[in-house]
């Protein structure tokens, strides 16, 4: 069968107005169904005719999935809230600026207007072998084209590989892990809640999924506890261009300082593994210490040994890059 790209093939479009109706549709179609949120990931797959779902369930009209709800113990963001809204929301900017900042670094203004927080968290990897439709492990085949000594793998992972060496592309994920967020998932069997870092799937567990979501489940909202509200945050995304690019490495930290020393901290990085990585060993290491550049450097070094960093042929730069971003996330930008 010959291959043709850039031409979406036909599908049946459903536009439910309630979450339960969407779940009912997804249950009905199983693996032939597809959840459409902002469409930035979906339409690339559709245009390339690599993914050809029978039924597309568009969540655009499900109002209960949209908006930012503020409560005394934190904030709940509907999965279909646009990235623009997340990046500009006054309450998020004031209390959880790390999330607004991370959202503001996603892609471009146009994409942020269409893209949703849930979509950004649930999107597929951008490994170009996989995205080109090659029959790799992640696509159900039995080889990884990106991990060989001759592969073009500058953007790929330095840890967490398990047959697949792709990276998670989400910019908002490390920020939400640093904020201790919880993700609300609803399916035919009801609702469940997972910790942010547990939402993401390791290829060692299931190589064909990026998240724990099953075919008939939806990510409905993201809950951020008030725990880290207004603490010292740091977010940085390194990319090849300052817009419309995926992270080479990104880092997010929330650090509580009391009396000049770090009382509590959460750190996460992305762009280094098939899933965003929380650096718990580093968090423990820096507690009770002053947030100096020396501490940052030591923490950066520790982060590399903690993840047992193993570069591929073309991505050795990610080691010093991650080390330095972790360092900066503890001491701030200025050295």
């Amino acid at each position, binding site marked *: 069968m010959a291959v043709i790209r850039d*031409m979406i093939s036909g599908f049946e479009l459903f536009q439910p107005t309630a979450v339960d109706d969407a779940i009912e549709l997804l249950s009905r179609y199983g693996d032939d169904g597809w959840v459409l949120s902002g469409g930035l990931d979906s339409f690339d797959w559709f245009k390339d005719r690599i993914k050809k779902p029978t039924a597309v369930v568009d969540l655009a009209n499900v109002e209960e999935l949209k908006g930012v709800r503020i409560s005394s113990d934190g904030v709940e963001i509907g999965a279909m809230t646009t990235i623009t809204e997340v990046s500009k929301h006054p309450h998020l900017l004031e209390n959880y600026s790390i999330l607004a900042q991370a959202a503001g670094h996603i892609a471009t203004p146009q994409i942020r207007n269409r893209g949703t927080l849930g979509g950004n968290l649930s999107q597929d990897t951008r490994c170009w072998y996989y995205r080109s439709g090659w029959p790799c492990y992640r696509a159900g085949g039995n080889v990884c084209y990106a991990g060989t000594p001759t592969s073009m793998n500058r953007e790929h992972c330095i840890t967490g590989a398990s047959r697949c060496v792709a990276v998670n592309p989400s910019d908002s994920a490390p920020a939400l892990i640093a904020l201790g967020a919880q993700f609300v998932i609803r399916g035919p069997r009801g609702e469940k809640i997972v910790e942010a870092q547990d939402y993401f799937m390791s290829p060692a567990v299931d190589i064909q999924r990026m998240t724990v979501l099953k075919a008939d489940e939806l990510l409905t909202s993201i809950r951020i506890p008030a725990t880290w509200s207004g603490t010292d945050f740091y977010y940085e995304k390194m990319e090849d261009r300052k817009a419309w690019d995926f992270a080479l490495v990104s880092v997010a930290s929330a650090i509580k300082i009391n009396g000049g020393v770090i009382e509590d901290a959460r750190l996460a990085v992305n762009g280094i593994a098939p899933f965003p990585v929380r650096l718990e060993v580093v968090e423990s290491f820096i507690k009770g210490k002053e947030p100096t550049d020396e501490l940052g450097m030591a923490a950066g070094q520790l982060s590399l040994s903690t993840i047992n960093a193993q570069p591929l042929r073309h991505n050795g730069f990610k080691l010093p*890059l991650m080390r330095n971003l972790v360092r900066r996330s503890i001491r701030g930008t200025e050295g």
Partner: protein
Amino acid sequence: MAEKLIGQDISPPDLIAKITGRAKYSEDFRADGMIFAKLLLSPMPHCRVRRIDASAALAMEGVFGMLTADDVPAVDAPGEPCLTNEPLYEGEAILAIAAVDETTAAEAIELIQIDYEPLPFVLNPLDSLHPDGPNGRLEGNTRVGREIKTIKWTQEDFDIAGPEKMPMGEPSDEWTVGDIEKGFSEAKVILDETVVHQSLTHHPMEPRSTMAYWKNGKIYMHTSTQSVSRTRAALANMLDLDLEDVVLVGEFCGGGFGSKISGSPIMQVPAHLSRKLNRPVMLRITRYEENYLGRARPGMQARIKIGFREDGRITALDIYALGDGGPYGTNDHMSGGSTASLAYQPLNQRQRGVGVYTNTPPKAAQRGPGGAQYIGMLEPLMDKAARELGIDRLDLRRINAPDGNSVFGPRQGGLTSVHVKEAIEKGVELFGWNERIQRSGQLNGTKKTGIGLAISPYTAGSTGFDGLLVIRPDGKLQIHQGIGNLGTHSIADTGRAAADVLGLQWKDCEIVWGDTSQHLPWSSVQAGSQTTFAHTRANHAAGMDAKRKLQEIAALDLGGSPSDYETSDGRVFRRSNPSRGMSLGAAAERAISLGGTYSGAEPAEDLNDMTKMAVRGLEGKGLVAAARDNYPREGAIQSWVVGFAEVEVDVETGQVDLINYTGVADVGTVLHPRSLRAQGLGGSIQGMGIAMSQKWVFDPVWGVSFANRLYTARPPGMLDIPLDMDWAAVEIPDPQNPVGAKGIGEPPVGAGSAALTSAIADALDGRCLCRTPLTADVILAEIEGLEPAYGPLDLHV
């Protein structure tokens, strides 16, 4: 007397259509019964199509037919066919299916079974020159003269060079000026560097879509092309038709950068399909297809040896460049040698090279072809030499820059004008070089400042084309332009030369362009920065012809001799008694009744046949003036941009922030200040993409491309450049153009690219990385002292 139009900011006539979306590009057209075509592209870098089974596709409802390589005229190697049975790169078009809509056509394509025989392929020219290396084409790996040949270097050639330096075996092309060995013997500092310049896809915003239909033996084509008259001629040639049987409509072109100069092979597909199926056919090229079919700047690997005298003068420049010519062998690795000769005036120079066929998308001229790559590769080496010589970097440029008596290139020809030294000094002032250079190498937090500069010349004109005007009975001046409209404003701005000759206001001028049924003259291609120089001359000549005819008509009716009359403000009148005269409208009526040369019935003998056809087509519309540009010209026409950049390199991430860019041009008289600035800074930004982010990535084992989307190819975006950039021109007229103007399109690219690489090297304490793009990973690896991830001669990484 009307104010001169040249030098004013005047919005072009297509502006409102463009910003309101009313402008119709090729894919916006529809014709009765029109069907859509889709292409099947090669999945492999080199293969043979052994068998096509399209039975299931052709049996589909809504499918009208198929066009394969067997249906189109064969092209002699190494020419490029529009469809092929031996694809020479991944993404080359094999066949097209026409259907009622694109969805159906795409589904039909998926039903086609092709039996491919994989053939050897090569992505890196050096691999092909290796004794056992593959050839990109079955006939050979390079072209010598008009023949395809095979050049293989010896193992010894590779062994002598070692892994770090580019080997230099037998060249296919070579020229020398002076005595290169003598030059090096006089040098105090000699650099010998291996440099890599990437290939870059053109990525115009509008893909090369075409709609075609036949009517009464004529073909009507709506296509995305840079030029108009020249594309019409190219189409007539490609389709083996008489010129008058080709009607081309291309009013707007969403960019080309050299990739659509006179169209491209793929536009033949809807023409042939339309003839075969007897229906209008639309072929909309997608972004993905544009990446493959849309042309690219040839990458280069070069060994550059430069010798400097103690006082900084370059005594010898010895360049050996390999051109990555793609499958059809378009190369500019040799032409860049002339740019280097011009920019640095070496006392002795040798230029050698081999252009090698590779199984990568076809190459074409890209804005500043050859010159941009050479300036990009050489300017950082100038900086390196300045450091070794202990000479100020700016002074080193001043010492070697040309002046009015300079000659250059293999033929050591002169120039129409050159004011690069004035441009340097103006730039030093505008950029604030003396203040900024104090910050060079300073570390502020984690950010280290680098200051860079580059001087970039390029060909900026041609001569000998035709201008065509009509003064209508309503008194308006119609300026017919055969050049194209790809956003440079040339169609309007070059017409000002004619209006100024006649002393007309712009509101009394109308531009006719973009539709060959509207009688367009023979013109230069809309490329190579040619039109400003070529068509101010041609329109000036036509303006003079119109003026002469007006004077003759006035003298005929009002007495006296023609030289007693002047034209201005819509009238031709007696100089000694301005009240005695006639309106241009009245003169136009007289021209129609006089006939002959006045009415368009008798075109001048020296006009091109296309122009004669247009002149005759306009007979009776008014006073028809047409003239060939016969103005003398001696020397090469070259424009210059001197670029200055300040960057900050984050030493912890390798990220580059461009703080300021300042460009100063030597382009003669400024026709249109706002447009000049847009061209100068736009071209510079394109160069910044070369320096910072834009590239090709190929898997070396499978021979297929991954940077095939805009987001993976990474041309620069708005946030990658400073909001405020500075721009100026020296504004010294070129004496060989009647209005003093020279072109601007090409030279800013090399200036933008090299000013940045120069600034980045400065921030790295003078370490020259000798490759582009300088992405954060490359810079950080250098700062951290990591083993480089890429070999010094690796391409497409």
